[in-house]
């Protein structure tokens, strides 16, 4: 007989287990609708790989694992995916979470299973992958991905594999009945786990309040080398750390994992799931759930598909809603009240408790702590619950942490024994959450600080660069000025020379105003004036084509220039005729030129008057229409190219404006035509 140890504290609440043990495991059947939360385990939520409307087979993967600490989700029956949306899930927050909803088609048609005939011949990594792909997460309550737990580090070999068949919480009998009815499966699962992690011993721990289970397991374990260890009933001996202490006498260090002391602990339900995944090729799509409490007529254990709404299971067990005042998922000690009866069961749901008001009364109001110390006596983690309570209440979270707040397993033993009925566990949960929040905030603020400082540094660097550029430019400018000053002395001479040249020219012109030069002068004047007229008229053409407002001014300029040209030509002509006398044409020319210009201008005006107003209006209308067409084309182009909205709007308003102008032009034309 193996020596069993004891752990500190613990309580003996009323067990209430017999109610649900009267009948064997019954199949709950297939509900019309199954709701599969994507996050049924600890770690990253699974990612849906099916689409709404898609038909899925029983056992088909509907959501794939995302990351190492994650497991996939499988369709529990065949049917159609009717929605992938947020649904209310079983969580103390009462919040919704993304779920895949499958409407059953009633056929319950399996996909092809690929069992492993002889797992000894298969690579261990392959077996682990199969366990992971089967979606197995710890079924005792925490839901930690089993494959991750089974990944043994070579530098830390595992001495002891423990299967947890303790089930210490009142009311729950799912593991108990599993051990009674499927002892062989549990042993097979244990053998697979043992093959994977190669421990020196395999223990199955069962409390002594389950004699039938113990007997069944002992029969099944005969000749396998697996030892069934029985120990006295005490809550919470099913806690992982407590069970390890009971069976091995070793304590898991604070903040550490069982693997640190060479122990791996698995729930018996997980062992069965592993066995089904390897030997039958079936993923985790159902589990045994205890439905119990005084508000159900036939408390029993049901084999339910994952995703079955709680209300469906309650109905199967004969639920009397009138008797019930709240629904609890899990046991009375560690379970939580669910927001709605339609929430689905998940991989970690071991019990649905529907107590009557008398059975589980609302907690009486909390009284002040009297420092009796009963909580410290009951604490299985050897903490000081009342100190933690004071710290949590006073928000002295740092001190709470120093008093090993995070070693609290939230078993509720302290609240159970508290004569002042203080909801101690709630204080610890809140304090833990607050500490984690503070840590996250600190992390975030540190991150922000680094980003802020990086930005400041960048801005400073940019500023310095700008400053350097500015300085360089300033220096270059100074250098240039200096060079210019130096060259200034050298350039003084040419300027002076040019001035002198010009002076000399003037002097020469003044002295020898001969006939030849006069003729040349007149010819030059004609040529330059002609040139000017050409440029002015091209400008005018361009302005007319553009429809610019400067057309009038330009027209005036052109008229003036042409008058000048006429005058110059006249002068030249006169000079050539009166060759010997250069004095006469000069005064005569302006007179004639002015006359000619006046005449030309009058002629032009007459011509203008002749073709106006109808023609004029038509001309401008044509121009406007051409512009409108252009703008419209541009707008079309812009729309087709999907340009920015503002540009489109601007173009539209341009087109609109032009349209108005065209309309006005047309009206003018009509008016012109009528008169």
């Amino acid at each position, binding site marked *: 007989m193996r020596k069993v140890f004891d752990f500190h504290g613990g309580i003996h609440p009323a067990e209430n287990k017999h109610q649900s043990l009267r009948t064997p495991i019954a199949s709950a059947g297939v509900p019309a609708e199954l709701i599969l939360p994507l*996050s049924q385990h600890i770690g990253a939520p699974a990612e849906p790989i099916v689409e709404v409307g898609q038909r899925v087979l029983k056992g088909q993967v509907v959501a794939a694992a995302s990351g190492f600490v994650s497991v996939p989700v499988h369709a529990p029956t065949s049917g159609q995916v009717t929605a992938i949306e947020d649904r209310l899930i079983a*969580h*103390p*927050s009462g*919040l919704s*979470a993304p779920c895949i909803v499958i409407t059953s088609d009633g056929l319950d048609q399996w996909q092809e299973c690929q069992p492993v005939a002889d797992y000894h011949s298969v690579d261990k990594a392959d077996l682990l992958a199969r366990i992971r792909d089967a979606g197995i997460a710890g079924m005792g309550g925490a839901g930690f991905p089993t494959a991750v737990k089974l990944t043994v580090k070579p530098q830390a070999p595992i001495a002891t594999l423990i299967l947890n068949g303790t089930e210490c919480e009142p009311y729950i009998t799912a593991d108990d009945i599993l051990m009674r009815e499927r002892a062989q499966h549990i042993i097979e699962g244990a053998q697979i786990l043992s093959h994977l992690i190669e421990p020196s011993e395999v223990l199955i721990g069962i409390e002594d309040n389950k004699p039938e289970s113990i007997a069944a397991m002992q029969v099944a374990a005969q000749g396998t080398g697996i030892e069934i260890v029985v120990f006295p009933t005490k809550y919470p001996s099913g806690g992982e750390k407590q069970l390890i202490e009971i069976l091995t006498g070793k304590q898991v260090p604070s903040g550490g994992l069982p693997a640190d002391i060479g122990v791996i602990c698995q729930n018996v339900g997980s062992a069965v799931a592993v066995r089904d995944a390897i030997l039958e090729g079936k993923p985790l799509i159902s589990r045994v759930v205890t439905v119990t409490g005084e508000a159900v007529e036939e408390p029993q254990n049901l084999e339910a598909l994952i995703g079955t709404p709680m209300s469906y299971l309650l109905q199967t067990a004969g639920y009397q809603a009138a008797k019930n005042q709240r629904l609890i998922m899990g046991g009375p000690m560690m379970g939580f009240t669910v927001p709605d009866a339609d929430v689905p069961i998940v991989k970690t749901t071991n019990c649905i408790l529907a107590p009557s008001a008398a059975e589980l009364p609302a907690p*009486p*109001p*909390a*009284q*002040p702590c009297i420092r009796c110390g009963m909580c410290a006596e009951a604490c299985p983690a050897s903490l000081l619950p009342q100190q933690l309570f004071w710290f*949590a*209440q006073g*928000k002295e979270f740092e001190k709470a942490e120093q008093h090993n707040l995070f070693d609290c397993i939230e078993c509720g033993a302290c609240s159970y024994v508290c004569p002042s*009925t*203080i*909801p101690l566990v*709630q*204080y610890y*949960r*809140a*304090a*833990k*959450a*607050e500490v*984690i*929040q503070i840590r996250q*905030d600190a992390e*975030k*603020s*540190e*991150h*922000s*600080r680094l*980003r*802020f400082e*990086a*930005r*400041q540094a960048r801005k400073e660097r940019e500023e310095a660069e700008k400053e350097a550029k500015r300085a360089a430019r300033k220096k270059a400018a100074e250098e240039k000025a200096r060079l210019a000053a130096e060259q200034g002395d050298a350039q003084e001479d040419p300027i002076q020379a040019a001035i002198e040249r010009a002076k000399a020219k003037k002097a020469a012109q003044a002295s020898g105003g001969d006939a030849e030069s006069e003729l040349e002068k007149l010819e030059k004047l004609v040529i330059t004036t002609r040139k000017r007229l050409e440029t002015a008229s091209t400008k005018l053409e361009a302005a007319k084509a553009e429809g610019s407002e400067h057309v009038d001014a330009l027209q005036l300029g052109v008229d003036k220039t042409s008058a000048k040209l006429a005058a110059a030509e006249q002068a030249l002509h006169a000079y050539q005729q009166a060759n010997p006398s250069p004095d006469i044409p000069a005064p005569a020319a302006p007179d004639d030129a002015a006359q000619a210009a006046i005449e030309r201008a009058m002629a032009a005006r007459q011509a203008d008057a002749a073709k106006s107003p109808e023609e004029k209006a038509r001309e401008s209308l044509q121009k406007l229409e051409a512009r409108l067409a252009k703008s419209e084309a541009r707008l079309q182009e812009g729309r087709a190219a999907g340009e*920015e909205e*503002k540009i489109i709007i601007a173009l539209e308003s341009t087109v609109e404006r032009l349209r108005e102008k065209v309309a006005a032009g047309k009206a003018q034309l009509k008016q012109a035509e009528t008169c």
Partner: protein
Amino acid sequence: MYALIAQYPLLAALFALVSLGAVFGAILGYAAVRFKAEGNPIVDQINAILPQTQCGQCGHPGCRPYAEAIAAGEEINKCPPGGQAGVQALADLLDVEAPTLDEEHGEEKVPHVAYIHEDDCIGCTKCIQACPVDAILGAAKHMHTVIVSECTGCDLCVDPCPVDCIDMIPEDETLRSWHWQLPDPNSRQVDIIATDAAAEAAA
């Protein structure tokens, strides 16, 4: 030597004390140079407590300047994002009485995150320039967006926006952010004994 000391005890004592003082003075002087503290260490400690939103609600251009101002004697209750808990932490650090948060600089509120209405954004980059932690992504004439994980909820991008397309929205509660709250303190204020309360309820 002994005769000399015996002859002039006063001078001997004086000499001994002065030489001791000189030796220790030299050691301390060396230590002051050798182990000189770079900057003011209290500023770093204060800065570590401040929430680093860089929002400027305290009237300083960033958290570090405020930390420096606190070290120089400014009030510690001007940081709304840090909240009363932040004031308390600063008070603990500086060993002073914790004042209540100065409402003049803003109220303590749940963390917010900037949200750019992308349909309205004209791509002016003004908010990018305003963001103290480079949490806004975008380019000129292109739509901008907020990198939520980097946003400190400082509010500084809201004012510069010429088309008013930035809103501060409270971070919504998800399963990941949800956590247990401390029990309602009012639930503990009972004026009758619990057993009597049960009897009262039955009656």
